[in-house]
């Protein structure tokens, strides 16, 4: 980072500190300017670790609300950025925790065009994905569940074994058989 950038950051930090101090006194215009100013920064921090644009938007909004709620804890004799970065990191973790806690409830069809547009890089292969979905549908229920949890939802073999009351090796064998059948089905 060059001296010009350092200067720019320092100016930005000082500006945010001043705006936050004014906001604490009830200056809504300063607060509005502060929130508008920090949105690109929040987005850039989140973009470094998240690729889902909807998540970035949701967390950015959560951070703005959190800044409003916790403004009284900010001390103008400290730089504004570390205070805000702590909130960004907290809200990101909170969002991911909620997402992973509920991930077993999140099911979607590979025919869902909106989902594909948001999560699949090459939407043109959506037809092939539908074939995969059809092949998965032909598997015995237990095998399909094991395969889906292990290969699609990202659970570990141990977690699946606990969930389904199987041994870890039985889970691995079941997933292997499912994979073999899918290969045969899909050529």
């Amino acid at each position, binding site marked *: 980072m060059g001296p010009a950038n350092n200067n720019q950051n320092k100016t930005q930090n000082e500006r945010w500190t001043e705006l936050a101090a004014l906001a604490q006194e009830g200056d809504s215009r300063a*607060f*509005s300017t502060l929130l*508008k100013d920090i949105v690109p920064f929040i987005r850039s921090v989140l973009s470094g670790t998240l690729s889902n644009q909807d998540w970035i*938007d949701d967390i950015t909004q959560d951070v*703005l*609300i959190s800044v*409003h709620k916790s403004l*009284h*804890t900010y001390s103008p004799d400290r730089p504004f950025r570390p*205070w805000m970065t702590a909130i960004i990191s907290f809200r990101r973790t909170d969002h991911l925790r909620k997402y992973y806690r509920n991930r077993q409830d999140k099911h979607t069809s590979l025919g869902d065009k909106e989902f594909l547009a948001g999560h699949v890089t090459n939407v043109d292969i959506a037809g092939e994905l539908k074939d995969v979905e059809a092949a998965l549908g032909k598997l015995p229920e237990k095998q399909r569940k094991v395969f889906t949890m292990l290969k699609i939802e990202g659970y570990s073999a141990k977690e699946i074994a606990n969930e389904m009351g199987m041994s870890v090796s039985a889970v691995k064998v079941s997933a292997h058989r499912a994979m073999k059948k899918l290969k045969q089905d899909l050529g």
Partner: protein
Amino acid sequence: MKTMSKATGNNKDMDDLIAKLAGQLEPVKRFPHPLKLALIWLGIVAIYMGFVIAILGVRADIATQLQSSEYLFEIALSLSLSLSAGFAVLWLCIPDMRGQKWMIMPPIVLLLALMVWIALRTTFDTFHIPQNFWNHCSSESLLFAVVPSISIFLLSWKGKTTHHWLLPFMTALAVGGMGYAGLRATCLSEDLGHILMYHTAPYFIFAFLATLLGQRLYRW
């Protein structure tokens, strides 16, 4: 094109939210400096501990115990654990801890030191675990915990922590360390089984419950 219109929509949502938040803004009273809160807590706890010890009575052999470097070391360890954890709580209730993240380390190191100390005693001293789960020391351990836990909760509650698990855990260390020292100053027993069962275990249970409950109470 669709993405562009979605982005425009999101920007509009963001602008609406900012306008709404700015519209709701009122002057805020700044959260006091954590050191000020820590000193208030320390004052409350010192008075309360003095009061409880006066009611329960200092152990009869205190003069002898004060000659023992082991006893003094143990009391100093538990009090410093309590104070460092209590101070950490009041910094933890601010999002960036005012840049003092190192404050998390001393209570953890002191807790480990106290655990190692107790573990070492189990290897040198003979002891037996009591059969009864409840003893007058169990209720006294609760008595020592009441005001320190309520006061630290009230002082930290208006903050906005970004450490939901750590803050209640530190609260439990602050309360537990103080209670442990209090019990060692009032209870005559030097039996390690008694100390583990009635002076230490209640605070481990308290730590477990406080951490579970605290992460809900401090959510914002």
